[in-house]
Structure formats: structure tokens, C-alpha cells
């Protein structure tokens, strides 16, 4: 039986998210490619030694970041999926939280510790972010691997390492490959981290697209680089999809397995988890420390300046930056969450709404600045335009956050409502909407967190009157001077506290 949808009498409602995504995403990206992509520029970019170097750096740093993240994330995932110990819930919370933190904040945290820029700080920042991807994707699968199969292997004489490679790995490999693919793409298209930690010598394709399009005004080269980036992402998707085809062994999963709690089992998982927490949480704590301490002296001057003073390095007051970011986050949530709700409760095509995940923020940025540049659509400098684009970027993730709750509503409840005289719209409003309320709150928190942290596309659109927190942090940390740097760390610390606050309430 086809799933009931709100579609019957409300086709115009279904069209709203499709039109929104088409206008603010599909049209600008297609416009950029059609107007500015030239094969000659593409081959010029490939033959340019400097740009080849940028592409090569993007690739190898993403591969190393992925491998290091897996090396730290997989043992931690094993520890938290297989064992329970005092504080294990808190540990899981700490390790998964950075996923919604802005890239520039994580980068600021690493800078607060290392006080230097370059490859190692870049890799560290990527690890901080992406350990949560491993935990979120591999954790649920690993916790369902049937313990009886491992016991059977042991009774047949397999050492723990052989049991892992022959019994456990075939059951978790798809999830590990999925996580690795996502991590690679996040690191390959890294922009916020590179803006803070790349210095003058380390650039990714994503940051180079920004430089070419905005600083040098060379849209043709920027588009060629965007196509090159999309092609590499496409190849990675193709390779990983082929190698993660489900096989029969993947079906040996079962219900979540009981966690081991015996004291003798706890030591190794405890040490592994503690090490992961130090790597992930220390940069976040360091932002708070650096915002409070100057030359080994406790000082609240940075906090005072961001709440009541002004900073010469910023063209607007820090208070106005904070207000702007919060207004943008609220506006983006007001646009994004209702649209996501329409998508998950109607027959709107799902695949279309995954598109923003496959296209990098800088590619979207180029499309936006060239498409919305001429009257009557000269919206690129309008204040309202930034939260609209934040809503576009948050939409696929917010849909994914709402989808499980929407599909969990039993079909029989809708039938019961219909037999009591409720139209599809009345059923949606009175039965489905109340059931979705907790998920809607979480989705609102997620949307706000994404908007607060968005850096890539905002960099293309931000003007002095619409400077957001991540843009201000990048500007402050990019300038010399102890007071300026400390104010940057104070804004980063504020974002850590606000993001954690928003997400823990949602």
C-alpha cells in the first residue's frame, strides 16, 4: 500500500521546497557551470604548477586526515560500542559534539594550543571534527555485531585479531567505508580550517576557488577548479560505492548487544576513550583558556570588548556581529525547518534535497555571486540573502534529522484519523505534527548550529553590515596583535558555549 502523503489536495505545498531549492541552489550552480566553464580554462588549471600543487595538497591532506581520524575514531568507537564504564555516556557526548561546531572555531582551538599554522594543525582540526562521524556512522553498526559469532570464532581457535578480521570487519566494513568517504569529502573541501590554519602556503581547492572568484575576480578559473573538485569527489564516491557493496556477511547483524561491564574489561577501553577525548576536547577548552589568559595573567578584557567595546580589526562592533549571527540563525531555522517538514511529510522528491551535500560551499558561492548580481535579482548584497542560503545548506541535514521520526509514525494512526473524519491536512496538523514535535525541536537546534557555523558560502556574500561570527573570528585570528587574537578566541569560545547550549536544549 502506498504510504499516505499530504499530497492529495496540497500540491502547491509540495512545490514550495522544490522551488526554494531550485531558485537558491540548482539555478546558481548550473548558471556558474554553463556560463563560466571552459575546457581551455580547465586544461590551463591542470597545467598550472601552482594550481596543481593546490589540488595535490587538497588530495593528500584529505587522505592523511581520513586515515588519522580512522586510527583515532575506530578504537574509540569500539570502546564505546562494546563497553560501558562510568562516564561512557558523557564521553560519547563529548566526542560527538564537535560535528555541529563551526570549522573556524575548531581551527581556532587548535591554533590556541599550537600557536602555529601548517599541516599538523590542519590534520588535528580535521580529526577533532570527524571522530564524531566515525562514532555516529560506525557505532550503531558495531554495537549490533552479534557477540555469539565472536564467541564461536574464539571457540574454534581464532585469536582476537583473527576474529576481528574474519568475523567483525566483514560486518562493519560498509559503515567504515561510508564514514571514510564522508570524512574524505569534508577534509577535501575544507575551507574554514584552511582559512585559519593554512597560513599563506597551504591552500585547498575550496579556498583557492574563493581566492580566484572573490579576491582575483577570475570566475572562469574558479569554475574550472570547482569542476575539478566535483570530479575528484565523484571518483571517490564511485570507488567507495563499488567497494562497499553489501555482501551476505553484512546480514549477520542482530539487535544491539549487551555491553561488557566487568572491571577486567574496562582498562583498555577507558584508556582509548580518554586519549580520544584529550585530542578532541582540548582545542575547545583551549579557546576558553586563551580568551581568559594573556601572558599568564587572567584577563577579562577580551570578553568585555566583545560585549561592550569595539575592535579596530573589525569594521563593525562585536555586539552587532553576535546579533547578526543569532538573527541569521533564527531566520534560517524559520525557513529551513518548515521546508524540511514539508519534504518529509509529503511526496517531495528526496534525492533532489541531497544535492547540496554533493556540491561544495565555494561552488555554490560562485553561483550565488554571479546569478544574483544583476537587477531585478541583485540579491547578493541583501541582508536577508545570507540566512536564506544558510537554510539551503542546512536543508539536507535537517531533512535527515526529521526523516526517521516521520517514517516512524505508524500508518495505522493516519488510517484511524481518516476514519474519524479527519482530512489529510487535519491528520497532518492534529496527529503527525504533535508526534514530530521533539524531532522538530532537534531539527531547529541543528539548523541554528549549521547557520551559526557556516563559513564557506557566507564568505562569498558577507559585507561589513552582515559579518557573522565565523567570518569575524577568521578576520580577528588573521590579524596580528595580542588583544585582537584574544578577542578572536573569546568569540570562538562564545560559539563553543552557544552551539553546545543550542544542541543540548534541542
Amino acid at each position, binding site marked *: *500500500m502506498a504510504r499516505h502523503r499530504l499530497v492529495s489536495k496540497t500540491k502547491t505545498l509540495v512545490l514550495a521546497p522544490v522551488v526554494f531549492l531550485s531558485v537558491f541552489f540548482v539555478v546558481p550552480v548550473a548558471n556558474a557551470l554553463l556560463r563560466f566553464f571552459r575546457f581551455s580554462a580547465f586544461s590551463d588549471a591542470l597545467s598550472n604548477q601552482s594550481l596543481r600543487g593546490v589540488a595535490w595538497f587538497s588530495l593528500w591532506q584529505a587522505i592523511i586526515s581520513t586515515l588519522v581520524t580512522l586510527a583515532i575514531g575506530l578504537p574509540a568507537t569500539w570502546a564505546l560500542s562494546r563497553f560501558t564504564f562510568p562516564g561512557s555516556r558523557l564521553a560519547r557526548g563529548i566526542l560527538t559534539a564537535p560535528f555541529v561546531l563551526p570549522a573556524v572555531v575548531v581551527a581556532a582551538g587548535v591554533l590556541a594550543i599550537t600557536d602555529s599554522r601548517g599541516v599538523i594543525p590542519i590534520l588535528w582540526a580535521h580529526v577533532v571534527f570527524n571522530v564524531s562521524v566515525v562514532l555516529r556512522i560506525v557505532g550503531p553498526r558495531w554495537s549490533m555485531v552479534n557477540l555469539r559469532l565472536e564467541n564461536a570464532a574464539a571457540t574454534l581457535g581464532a585469536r582476537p585479531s583473527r576474529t576481528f578480521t574474519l568475523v567483525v570487519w566483514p560486518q562493519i566494513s560498509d559503515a567504515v567505508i561510508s564514514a571514510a568517504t564522508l570524512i574524505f569529502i569534508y577534509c577535501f573541501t575544507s575551507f574554514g580550517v584552511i582559512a585559519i590554519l593554512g597560513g599563506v602556503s597551504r591552500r585547498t581547492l575550496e579556498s583557492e576557488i574563493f581566492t580566484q572568484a572573490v579576491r582575483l575576480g577570475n570566475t572562469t578559473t574558479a569554475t574550472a577548479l570547482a569542476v575539478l573538485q566535483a570530479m575528484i569527489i565523484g571518483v571517490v564516491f564511485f570507488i567507495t560505492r563499488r567497494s562497499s557493496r553489501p555482501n551476505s556477511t553484512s546480514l549477520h547483524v542482530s539487535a544491539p548487544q549487551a555491553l561488557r561491564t566487568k572491571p577486567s574489561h574496562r582498562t583498555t577501553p577507558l584508556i582509548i576513550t580518554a586519549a580520544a577525548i584529550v585530542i578532541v576536547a582540548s582545542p575547545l577548552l583551549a579557546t576558553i583558556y586563551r580568551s581568559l589568559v594573556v601572558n599568564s595573567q587572567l584577563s577579562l578584557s577580551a570578553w568585555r570588548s566583545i560585549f561592550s567595546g569595539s575592535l579596530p580589526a573589525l569594521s563593525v562592533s562585536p555586539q552587532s556581529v553576535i546579533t547578526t549571527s543569532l538573527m541569521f540563525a533564527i531566520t534560517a531555522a524559520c525557513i529551513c525547518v518548515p521546508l524540511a517538514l514539508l519534504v518529509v511529510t509529503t511526496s517531495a522528491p528526496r534525492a533532489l534535497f541531497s544535492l547540496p551535500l554533493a556540491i561544495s560551499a565555494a561552488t555554490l558561492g560562485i553561483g550565488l555571486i554571479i546569478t544574483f548580481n544583476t537587477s531585478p535579482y541583485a540579491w547578493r548584497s541583501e541582508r536577508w540573502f545570507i540566512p536564506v542560503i544558510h537554510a539551503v545548506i542546512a536543508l539536507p541535514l535537517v531533512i535527515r534529522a526529521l526523516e526517521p521520526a516521520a517514517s516512524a509514525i505508524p500508518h495505522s494512526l493516519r488510517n*484511524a484519523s*481518516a476514519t474519524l473524519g479527519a482530512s489529510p491536512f487535519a491528520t497532518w496538523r*492534529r496527529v503527525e505534527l504533535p508526534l514530530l514535535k521533539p524531532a522538530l525541536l532537534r531539527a531547529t537546534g541543528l539548523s541554528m548550529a549549521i547557520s551559526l557555523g557556516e563559513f564557506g558560502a557566507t564568505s562569498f556574500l558577507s559585507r561589513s553590515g552582515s559579518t557573522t561570527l565565523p567570518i569575524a573570528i577568521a578576520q580577528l585570528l588573521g590579524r596580528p596583535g595580542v588583544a585582537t587574537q584574544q578577542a578572536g578566541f573569546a568569540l570562538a569560545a562564545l560559539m563553543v558555549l552557544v552551539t553546545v547550549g543550542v544542541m543540548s536544549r534541542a
Partner: protein
Amino acid sequence: MLKVSKLSVVIDNTVIVDDISFTVSTGETLAITGPSGIGKTTLLHAICGIVRTTHGTVNIDNVDISSLPTHKRGIGLVSQTGDLFPTMTVSQNIEFGLRISRIPKADRTARVNELLQLVGLTHLAHRNVAELSGGEARRIALARALAPRPRVLLLDEPLAGLDQTTHDVLISDLARVLKQTATTAVLVTHDLSEADFLAETTFALPHK
């Protein structure tokens, strides 16, 4: 009077209900019996419009309602699981159909109290539905379906899965409620003794 004529349902090229016809007189109960998987529930869903019919018609009091959507047919349904709305209290569940019909608040309250009394659960009016026992949930589902005074009530195995004691109490109560409200009802069950106890007429669904 409910009249079902030559009703067929085909889903994904499989015939689920094949050319079924029967009539239920006003105020009477018809029991439809047959083993599991024979299409009893699909037949009920086709009558109330949840499942689209391939052939045939459904008439109530000589009016063809086959083309109407479920919410305009005036047919109530009590399913095997009760399907109470989890975000509403017991009273709010019973009140749901009355609110949809825009019945004034005072009348709604009176009707909810009347039905709570009918099923003997006035003390549970403000209870969260998650706290109800299996038997209580079935009674509330029955009260909710009866509240908007449906022209026909469909009962899909309303006593399935209950322990013997609850089953015995509930079957007497169900018979009493159906008689007291003079509801035209179609009961689906695989239990022949249940059919004999509750219905004036029994219709055995033919094997496919």
C-alpha cells in the same frame, strides 16, 4: 443499511479480495470469518476507503460512497491494535472525531462523558494512553470510533491478543454496546464462537 456489491481489490497484480457481495441491515452486526491472510482486513479497508477498490461498489442507505475519500464516508474503524493517538489523553482521543466535525465544546464534553460511561472507564478520562492496559485501550478505541456516530462501524479483530479473562469481559461489553447504540457493524474475526456471540449473521470469506 450497508450494501457491498462485487467488491474486488488487486494490489501489485495480486487479487486480495475477489468479487465479494453482502448486505448488513441497519442496527445489525455481520461477522466476516476466515483464516489469516485471506483478505479480511483488506476488505474492511476497502469498505472504508483506506484501500482503493478495483471493482465493485459500497452503498450506505442506497447511496454509492465508493468514490468518496475515507474521511467523508462516515464509516468508523476499530483496528486490532486500537491505534490511539499517543500525544493525546483518553478524553482527547475520544473527542478527536467530534473536534474534526466542529461540534461545540459543551456537546463534545457531554458526548465524551457518555461514551466513557458506556465503556465503563470514566475514571481514566485524563490518563495518558500509554498507561492503559490492553483491554482498556480497546475500550477507548471503541468509544473513540463510536463518538462521531458513524453510519457503519468496522471492527477488525477487536478482541485479538487479549488474555482470556479480559477477552471474556470485553466480548460481553462489546455485545452490550453494539446493541445499546444500535450500530450497524461489520466484525472481522477468525474465531467462530466470537462471531456467533456478537453477530446476527456470519459470512465466511471464500478461499481464493
